[in-house]
């Protein structure tokens, strides 16, 4: 048995023992989900998420009540989520089958999720509902009526194009998919030409037209002028750097060099912000493990039994 295998075994054994101890031996336990059963206005049953604190308070008020209940299905789901989280984190130590299983589940569920969303959110109301509104109204959207529910036979065009797009999966005749692909490319080209020209070119030039000598209530504002000068100068220098039709020598070279400095500061700021962004993503997963699963911390007071906000420390 090599060192890596020994570390895995030790981690598993210690981890399992700690989880067992926490779940069984401590007073509160860990990793349980609760639900609240309510009656909807129409008379049906609805299960809303509830917290451990809600459950304990309800039990204290009326022992044996059934409104707030422990949910086995959601508790199993919670432990599944924790297992998946740890399986993905295990990749940091080394690639292993648990990670591969988690990754496979993710790929499958994501693809299925997107297909289901595309079907119910777009295809049913905006395609099938336009070509065959009475069928959709009788089946899934009983409220569909009025002007928005009129049959519109022009929607045969996207239907036909869609079928042609799916022809890409066929072993032969993949050229058929060129028609819908051209439609897609044409749409992007048409939208982006105007969008980028207006919002990213013309508007940015307009935004850069700033007063280089700023007067505030008659008096010359030195720092505001410097600020505007830096912005205008910075944009011009950096744009000069990107202009490769002239060789970057002499005066043009010096201006381009200043442009590079502005760009380096830009990239440094981008790096700082990227670091900030990534860490927050890790923070929420650690919060999930410590708060939702292990019940080691309770910053949102979901397991506080007393409704009064107690001093947590001291």
């Amino acid at each position, binding site marked *: 048995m090599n060192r890596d295998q020994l570390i895995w075994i030790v981690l598993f054994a210690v981890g399992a023992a700690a989880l067992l101890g926490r779940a069984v031996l401590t007073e509160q336990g860990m990793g349980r989900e609760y639900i609240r059963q309510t009656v909807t206005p129409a008379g049906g049953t609805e299960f809303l998420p509830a917290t451990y604190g809600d459950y304990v308070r309800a039990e204290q008020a009326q022992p044996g009540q059934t409104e707030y209940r422990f949910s086995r299905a959601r508790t199993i789901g919670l432990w599944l989520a924790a297992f*998946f989280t740890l399986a993905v984190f295990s990749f940091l130590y080394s690639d292993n089958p648990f990670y591969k299983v988690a990754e496979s589940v993710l790929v499958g569920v994501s693809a299925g999720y997107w297909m289901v969303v595309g079907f119910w959110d777009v*295809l049913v109301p905006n395609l099938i509902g336009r070509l065959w509104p009475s069928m959709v109204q009788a089946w899934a959207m009983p409220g569909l009526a009025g002007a928005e529910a009129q049959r519109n036979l022009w929607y045969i065009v996207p239907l036909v194009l869609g079928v042609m797009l799916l022809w890409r999966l066929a072993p032969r005749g993949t050229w058929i998919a060129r028609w819908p692909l051209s439609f897609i490319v*044409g749409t*992007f080209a048409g939208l982006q*030409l105007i969008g980028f020209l207006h919002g990213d070119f013309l508007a940015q030039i307009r935004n850069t037209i700033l007063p280089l000598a700023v007067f505030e209530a008659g008096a010359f504002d030195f720092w505001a002028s410097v600020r505007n000068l830096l912005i205008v100068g910075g944009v011009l220098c950096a744009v000069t750097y990107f202009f490769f039709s002239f060789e970057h020598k002499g005066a043009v070279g010096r201006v381009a060099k200043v442009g590079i400095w502005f760009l380096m500061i830009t990239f440094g700021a981008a790096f700082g912000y990227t670091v900030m962004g990534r860490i927050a993503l890790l923070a929420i997963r650690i919060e999930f493990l410590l708060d939702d699963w292990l019940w080691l911390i309770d910053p949102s007071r979901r397991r506080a039994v007393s409704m009064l906000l107690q001093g947590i420390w001291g």
Partner: protein
Amino acid sequence: MKRTVPLLITAVVGFTLIGAYFVPYTQSWGETVAIWFDVLAAIAFILGGGNLLRSHLKKISDQQRGWAYSIIVLASFLGTLFVGLGKIGVAPSPQFLEYSWSGPYRQTGSAFWYFYQYAFQPLTSTIFALLAFYIASAAFRAFRAKNLEAILLLATAFIVLLGRTFAGVALTGWIDPANWEGFRHFTGLRLENLTVYIMAVFNTAGNRAIMIGIALGIVATSLKILIGVDRSYLGKD
């Protein structure tokens, strides 16, 4: 024929959208094109799912390395499809109780919601949370102050990293007019203020230049595609 019609479609669609911006009469044509595109985009999801099915089925049938994981991919894919399309566990809408398919497919408590809440959401978030570790590793491996440009980059990164947390406030909090009147002119050097200045001035200028450059590139490419000069998207004949 195989190439002419697609080129025509591209041009007609693109110029309709452009024309709709300028000619109010054609605005509804532009809307129609955009809505048809939205429908096609949803059908593209089906294409993606179909592609996944095909490639993983092939992997299983060819018994390629790791084909067992393909079974897991397909099982989770088909399971999600089944519970989502079938609206398993979804109660009908309160106004239309007799229509069993009338409820929202994402209803809390339904099987599809369960797949989202306890598989999709933790997996997606955790995969992206791995990036925090890699950025630390990259910081140790890659960032060397080899020349002036690198020093500028690192110095700015340090100022932003400190200035966007309480560390910046604590480190330069002593630059306070309450400590010495002369500091009134130097409060801009406090790390948090310096960070705001860097973002609003230097970062804005740099990104604006990049934005202008990219915009020109996109306009040129879009025009080339629309007038048929760039035909690379059609692939080989």
